[in-house]
């Protein structure tokens, strides 16, 4: 395999990884939005028992997003403009 092909293949892999991480984080944000809606409804309707589980779920989603982002942060930037 020539150097050019190796570079292209590596770049393709990196882009696939970035896209996968992006989609996963977007899904986590969507789940967090739903949990925030539940929490607001619980706060306004005095269903206080919903607040802590919603916050815990949101925290888990945020932790998941932080865990996913490390795949991008650790890798050197190879994207071209």
């Amino acid at each position, binding site marked *: 395999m020539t150097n050019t092909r190796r570079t292209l293949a590596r770049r393709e892999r990196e882009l696939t990884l*970035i896209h996968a991480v992006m989609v996963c*984080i977007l899904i986590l944000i969507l789940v967090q939005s739903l949990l*925030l809606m539940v929490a607001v409804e619980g706060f306004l309707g005095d269903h206080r028992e919903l607040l802590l589980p919603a*916050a815990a779920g949101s925290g888990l989603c945020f932790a998941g997003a932080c865990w996913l982002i490390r795949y991008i*942060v650790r890798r050197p930037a190879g994207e071209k403009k």
Partner: protein
Amino acid sequence: MQTWQDDFPISWVDDHYVTRREFTKSLVLVSCSAFAANGALVVGSALSSRSAPATPAAIPGALALPVGGSKVFGFPGPLDPCLLVRLGEERFVAFGQRCTHLGCPVIYREQKRDLYCPCHEGIFDGESGRVVAGPPPRPLPRVKLERRGDELWALEVQL
């Protein structure tokens, strides 16, 4: 020939280009803010539950209300409007006046015996405060009442 681009060599497009990497990092910030908002709700709930309970207060002119009439009063404070309705000689009900949809003041309709929100046509049952029609998501908070001699007292708001 010198063009104006030679005098201004900065590429606006390149300067404002957002890479996918940077965009994904910004998504984590969005996730952080959603988590912070959830946390703020938990803290707000904890703080509000520690505040002093509502002090019972007499409703002025309650017993002079005619049957089928309604009256606005402030409870627990002057900025918390409530609506007192006299359903019968000895039957009084009171609810928070703010519609649970977007906070417009509701009015009592004697003919239909319901509480009506004119903003988006929400309708609440006049006896229980539950939602009958329209966009409101929750029933009106009920004010617990007690007759003490010649006065009607508001004791607490029940959500």
